[in-house]
């Protein structure tokens, strides 16, 4: 999978983004590949780390909504955004 704006493939990653990819994989042992949506941030490794941290904290930390409710919201937003109206 590629994108129309360049991103750094895992096998070409070096330096800071290689470290960020490695850190993500270490934190997500069940997932062999970096998701495309995260690779969109690979030209700014500092943003990559921020986005990962921010979104995981929002979705997976103990909050006021249950994780199931948060997943429902996320699924619905994504469906709406792909839905022409």
């Amino acid at each position, binding site marked *: 999978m590629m994108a129309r704006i360049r991103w750094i493939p895992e096998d070409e990653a070096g330096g800071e983004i290689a470290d960020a990819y490695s850190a993500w994989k270490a934190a997500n042992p069940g997932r062999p590949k970096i998701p495309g*949506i995260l690779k969109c941030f690979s030209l700014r490794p500092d943003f990559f780390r921020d986005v990962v941290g921010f979104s995981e904290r929002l979705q997976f930390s103990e909050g006021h909504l249950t994780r199931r409710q948060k997943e429902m919201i996320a699924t619905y937003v994504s469906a709406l955004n792909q839905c022409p109206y």
Partner: protein
Amino acid sequence: MQEPDPSVHDHLSRADLDGAPFPEAERALLRFVETITRHAYRVTDEQVESLRQVGWADEQLAECVYIAALFAFFNRVADAFGLADPNYFASPPPRGGEPSGE
């Protein structure tokens, strides 16, 4: 919390709120999500108050806003970059059941 119905995810993936079987309070919350996603400027004091009336606390409403906005952000990044795979996001599909704390 009700026993989650696996069809909920299917209905939501098709943006089919009316067909999805869940409690009225969650339906109202998702209508709020819909307003935020389609045209956030149309959120009103009345809508927020009606959500309080069906039991949502402001802490929960605030988190709902953050999640809705976060996914709008991801959806726009994905569209602009041209990601074809709709499953571009890291979140695994719900398998039903409240997630065990992980």
